[in-house]
C-alpha cells in the first residue's frame, strides 16, 4: 500500500498522487494499480442548465404587452400626442436592463455599461421626439447621459476592487455622486450660457468630499497604526 511521503497517510492502491498535498506517488518497485476500480466513480453528473429562458420569456412578454397595449390605447386616447412613446421607451429600457443580464450571464462590464447608456439615451430620445426637443436632446441630454455612463463605469470598476469593504464602497459611491453632479452643472451651464460658473454642484461636491474624508481616515486607521508600530517599535 502506498503512503504519502509528506502527509504520512496511507493512500489507495489506485492513487497516482496524494489528494491532500498533491505529491506524486512514485514507487519504482510497485507502480499504481490501474486495474482495480477507483474508490470513486469518474463520470460526472451533468447538471441541466437553469431554465432561465422561461423567466426571460415571461418578462419579455409582459413588457411587450405593456408596450403594445399603450401603443394601441394612444390611437384613441389623446391621439394628437404620442404619449405612449414614454411607456414604450421605458419598457425597452427595462428590457435591456433586466432581461439581457438574465439571458447572457457574463456580459463584459464595458459592453453592459454601453448597453445601459444606450438604453437611457434611447428613452430620453423618444421623450425628446414627443416634445420636439431635438436641440436640448443633443446639446444637453446626450452629454449628461454620456458623462453619467462614464462615472458609472468608473464606479463599477472601483467597486469591483473595493467591494469587500463597506466603508470604501460608501466613500466611492458618495464621491462618484459629487463628481457626477459637478459634470451635470457644467453641461447645464454650457447649454444655457456657454460658460461655466459652478455654484450648487460645488456645494454638493464639498459635502460629498467632507463625508468621504472621515470614511477614508477610518479605513486607513488600522494600516496607519500598523505603520506607526513598525517605525517606532522598541
Amino acid at each position, binding site marked *: 500500500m502506498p503512503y504519502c511521503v509528506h*502527509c*504520512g*497517510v*496511507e493512500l*489507495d492502491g489506485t492513487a497516482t498522487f496524494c*489528494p491532500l*498535498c498533491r505529491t506524486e506517488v512514485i514507487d519504482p518497485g510497485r507502480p499504481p494499480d490501474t486495474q482495480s476500480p477507483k474508490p*470513486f466513480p469518474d463520470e460526472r453528473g451533468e447538471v441541466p442548465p437553469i431554465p432561465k429562458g422561461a423567466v426571460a420569456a415571461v418578462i419579455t412578454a409582459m413588457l411587450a404587452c405593456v408596450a403594445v397595449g399603450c401603443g394601441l390605447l394612444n390611437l384613441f386616447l389623446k391621439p394628437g400626442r404620442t404619449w405612449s412613446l414614454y411607456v414604450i421607451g421605458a419598457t425597452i429600457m427595462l428590457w435591456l436592463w433586466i432581461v439581457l443580464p438574465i439571458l447572457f450571464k457574463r456580459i463584459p462590464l464595458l459592453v453592459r455599461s454601453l448597453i445601459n447608456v444606450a438604453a437611457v439615451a434611447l428613452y430620453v430620445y423618444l421623450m425628446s421626439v414627443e416634445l420636439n426637443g431635438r436641440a436640448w436632446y443633443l446639446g444637453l441630454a446626450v452629454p449628461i447621459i454620456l458623462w453619467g455612463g462614464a462615472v458609472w463605469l468608473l464606479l463599477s470598476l472601483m467597486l469591483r476592487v473595493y467591494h469587500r469593504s463597506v466603508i470604501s464602497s460608501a466613500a466611492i459611491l458618495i464621491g462618484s455622486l459629487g463628481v457626477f453632479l459637478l459634470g451635470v452643472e457644467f453641461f447645464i451651464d454650457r447649454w444655457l450660457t456657454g460658460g461655466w460658473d459652478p455654484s450648487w454642484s460645488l456645494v454638493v461636491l464639498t459635502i460629498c468630499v467632507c463625508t468621504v474624508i472621515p470614511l477614508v481616515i477610518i479605513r486607513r486607521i488600522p494600516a496607519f497604526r500598523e505603520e506607526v508600530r513598525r517605525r517606532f517599535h522598541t
Partner: protein
Amino acid sequence: MAGKQPEEKEKRQKEWYRLDNAAVVYSAIQKERYSAVYRFSAVMDQPVDPAALQRAVDKTMPRFPGFRVRIKQGVFWYYSEFNDAPGPFVQKDISNCCQPVRFDQDDGWLVRFFYYERRISLEVFHAISDGAGAMTLLRTLLAVYLRELGYQIPNTCGVLDVDKPPRPEELEDAYARYATVKARRFTTLKKAYPNAGTAEPFYTLNVTMGFCSVRQLKEKAREHGASITEYLTAVLLKVLVDQQRRERPKKELPVALAIPINLRPWFPTESLRNFILTVRPCIDPGLGEYTFEEIVSQVHHYLRLNINRQQMQAELAGNVKFARNKLVQITPVVLKNPGVAFGYWMAGVRPFSGTYTNPGPFEVPEEMRPHIRRMEVILGQATMPRVHCASISYGDVMEITFAGTQKESDTERDFFRFLVRDGIHVKVESNRTQ
C-alpha cells in the same frame, strides 16, 4: 391487499404536511450554489446488484412516506405532499455527488439512490429528514437488499418492518411538540473566520475521506480526557486556528464550528423528520494562543455545559415562535424567502468557520454485519467555497469526510496530518483528479 391499493393510493395523494422549522429554512435557502443534501453510503462486501437494489427500494419506500414527498410552494409557506411519480430509481453513481435539488425537476424526488462497485448510497434533501431519520431508512433498505440476495435478516436493531404500515408518530413535527417553554431571546453571533477558498467551476464537489480505527481514536481521545467527537472537534478547531494565523490577517477572528445535535435522546420521539439543533464551540485567538490541550478542554466543557434539556428546549421554542408569529405567517413565501435566507446567513453561515457532524455509530443487526465493510457520510456543498466535515463509525472503522467546492485542500491536509502526528493511522481516499 392488491384490491385495496388504488384506493389507498388515492387517499395518500391528498396528504400533505406542513414543513417543520428546519425544513422551512432548508427550502428557502435551496439554490444552485448551495446544497442542503447529504449522503450516507454503505460499502458492501460484494459488488452491488442494481436490480436487487431497485427491488429493495421499491419495497422499502412505502414504509417511509416522509421521504416519498415533493416540496411545493404555497402562498405563505412551502409544504410537502405525497409524490406519486414513478420511482425513485437507483442510478449509477457520479463523481460530483450531493447535487442541489430543484423542486421542479427529477419528478420532485428529494431522495436519490446510487450504486458504484460495492457502494450503496442514499442522498437526502435536508428539509425532509435529518441524519438519524436517513440512517433508519438506509439501515432498513440494506436489510431488505440483503434479504433480496437471499440472507435472513431480522427486524431488530432499528431495522423497520417494511411489511407493516407506516406509523403516524414517524411523521411527527417534534419541534412543534416540544416548543412548550418560553422562547429564548435571539442573540446575534460574532462573525467567525470564514475559511473560504477558491471556488471550483460549477458544479464540482471535492470529497476527501480518511479512515481510521475507532479503537485507536478512542484511546487517543481518552489520553486527552475527551470523547471521540470532542477530540475530532478540537483537532478541527486547532487546524483552523493555525490556518488563520498563517494567513496573517489584520485581526484574528474567532474560529467556530456548527455541530448538529440529535435531540432524540433528550426529547423522546419516533419522528423520522428533522429534529436537530446546532451548538457552537468556539475558540477566539484574539484572546491569546491556545495549546491543543486547552482547545480539547474548552470543547469538552463547552459541549457538556451547553447540551442540556432546558437550554435546547428554549432554543427550539425560539425557532418555532418565529414561525408562529402572525406577521411572519401572512407574509407571502416569495417575500419570506429572502428574509429567511438572510437570517440563515446571519445565524447559520457568518458566525461559523465550518460544520462538523458525527451522527454516531451505525448499528445493524448481528446478521448484517458480515456483509457491510464500512459506512461513509458526505455533506453537500456549503453556501461558500469551504469544507464541511462529517464522520460516521461502523465497527472499528471511523470514516471522516471533508467535502466542499473549494480548490484548496489545506483544511483536510492539516487535519489528517495532525492525526498522523498524534499516532493515528489514517488511510485517505478522494475523488479529486489533480
